[in-house]
């Protein structure tokens, strides 16, 4: 059936925990082309006519189904821009697993820019998981610029887990969300940068409906000379609650900029921002050293735990 090489297999495992063809609906994109696709009775995956991406249509009331849409790139110098639009029907309850793995062993930059738009119907529940991963020893960069837009109807909820731990040189992530009455958005971002990597993550969440809520939490580690910017803005336009948090560990000569942004346009909006940046607490390292770990092993354990 699907023919993929070892590198692509490894990438798929990293970004989507896939060892074989996934159950449920899926679309696997490899080096710029779809190499496998399946719809189900309730979930339709339809390529866009102009070839710029796919539409994923999930029928109202679909329960406990999943969609996998991993992207892998192993060809150096490939650049692509893909639009994936998700239409999630009323009352559906689904898991969407995206993710992108780039292996670049060549001299040219490889870049994947994925624009994901979610139209979340009334009362629907979505869990969205996205992993980014880069590998390969080429001098070409591995670049990922995900753009996410989330439009949430009344009483819908969306939980987004976004992870980028290794190997991506440049990321510029923008996430926009608009929430109607009673909608609930939860974002958990985990990020580690090393070498000379840069990662920028920008959020703009409009809480437009009464009873809507957003909780955006980023945990990150910046090592070596890498740079991160976390810019999260919540706008409260109704009786809503919002919380953003940036909790970061900085190591070596890493740099982190956290930009808090809260805008309340309603007297009933309750918005909170927290940000903490600092090096690994010395007493944590010492404690683990008294258990027999070396300083480097202790740091590794502390960071693993932090990003778990």
């Amino acid at each position, binding site marked *: 059936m699907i023919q993929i090489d070892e590198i692509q297999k490894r990438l798929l495992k990293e970004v989507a925990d896939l060892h074989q063809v996934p159950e449920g609906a899926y679309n696997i994109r490899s080096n710029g082309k779809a190499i496998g696709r399946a719809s189900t009775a309730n979930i339709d995956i339809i390529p866009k006519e102009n070839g710029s991406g796919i539409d994923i249509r999930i029928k109202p009331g679909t329960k406990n189904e999943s969609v996998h849409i991993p992207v892998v790139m192993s060809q150096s110098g490939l650049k692509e821009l893909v639009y994936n639009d998700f239409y999630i029907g009323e009352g559906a309850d689904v898991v969407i697993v995206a993710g992108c793995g780039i292996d670049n062993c060549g001299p040219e930059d490889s870049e994947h820019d994925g624009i994901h738009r979610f139209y979340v119907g009334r009362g629907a529940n979505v869990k969205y998981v996205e992993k980014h991963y880069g590998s390969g020893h080429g001098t070409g960069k591995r670049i990922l610029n995900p753009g996410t837009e989330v439009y949430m109807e009344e009483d819908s909820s969306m939980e987004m887990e976004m992870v980028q731990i290794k190997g991506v040189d440049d990321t510029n992530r923008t996430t926009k969300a608009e929430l109607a009455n009673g909608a609930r958005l939860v974002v958990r971002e985990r990020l580690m940068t090393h070498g000379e990597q840069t990662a920028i993550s920008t959020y703009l969440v409009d809480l437009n409906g009464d009873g809507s809520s957003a909780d955006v939490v980023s945990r990150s580690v910046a090592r070596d000379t890498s740079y991160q910017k976390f810019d999260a803005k919540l706008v409260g336009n109704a009786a809503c609650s919002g919380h953003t948090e940036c909790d970061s560990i900085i190591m070596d000569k890493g740099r982190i900029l956290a930009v808090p942004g809260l805008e309340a346009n309603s007297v009933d909006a309750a918005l909170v921002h927290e940000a903490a940046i600092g090096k690994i607490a010395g007493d944590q390292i010492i404690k683990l050293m*008294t258990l027999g*770990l070396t300083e480097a092993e202790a740091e590794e354990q*502390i960071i693993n*735990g932090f990003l778990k």
Partner: protein
Amino acid sequence: MLELQDIYFNVKADDAKKEIINGISLTIPDDKLVVITGPNGGGKSTLARLIAGIEKPTSGRIILHGEDITEMSITDRAKKGIGFAFQQPVKFKGIQVFDLIRLASGKRISVSEACTYLSAVGLCARDYINREVNGSLSGGELKRIEIATVLAKGSVLSVFDEPEAGIDLWSFQNLIEVFESMRKNIKGSSILIISHQERILNIADEIIVLKDGKLTAQGSKEEMMPQLTGTSSAVRECSMLSGAKEVR
């Protein structure tokens, strides 16, 4: 056996030299449970930190089983068999109780093995094994987990810094039993407990009093208990229960 030979420890505070440990020599023999007691600020925790290698003495030597470990790192001392339960347990983010016990044991262990250490310190293991070692745990819970890590590590010299602090009186008996059982299986190792608690002093083979960075008294439990009972160095639970202040 651990020997401290003429240990001094000074820090610089406001350009002045502050002497925290002032010429301490002592021996913690094999197969013995030794308790150090003494007033707040006397230097007990500092001495424990010097033994664990967290601080380095200004002068003096530290000898473990005949080997000079004065310059040895924390890690190497831990590997040589020194275990240390902190007075103030450290909190983490994301590291779970199971992770900490596993790291302490230094090998792959099963959840049920890890649970035995938690049960030993009176925690219902199932409820805790997946908890994060963070501020959501109460002070007493953190303290017990701290003790469990030292049990899991298994050491030739286990140092406990005020293990009773934050542990409720109803669980105190359980804690005493932990130390009694360690005492029973002590062969070839030694235990050092820093404590103000009369009932912990009572299970000691030897008691040492540390005050202003100096040893002011030292002897067997039988010699020492009469002179300590009722002082601040040996608080009885009843005085704690009634909320009475320690007498200085």
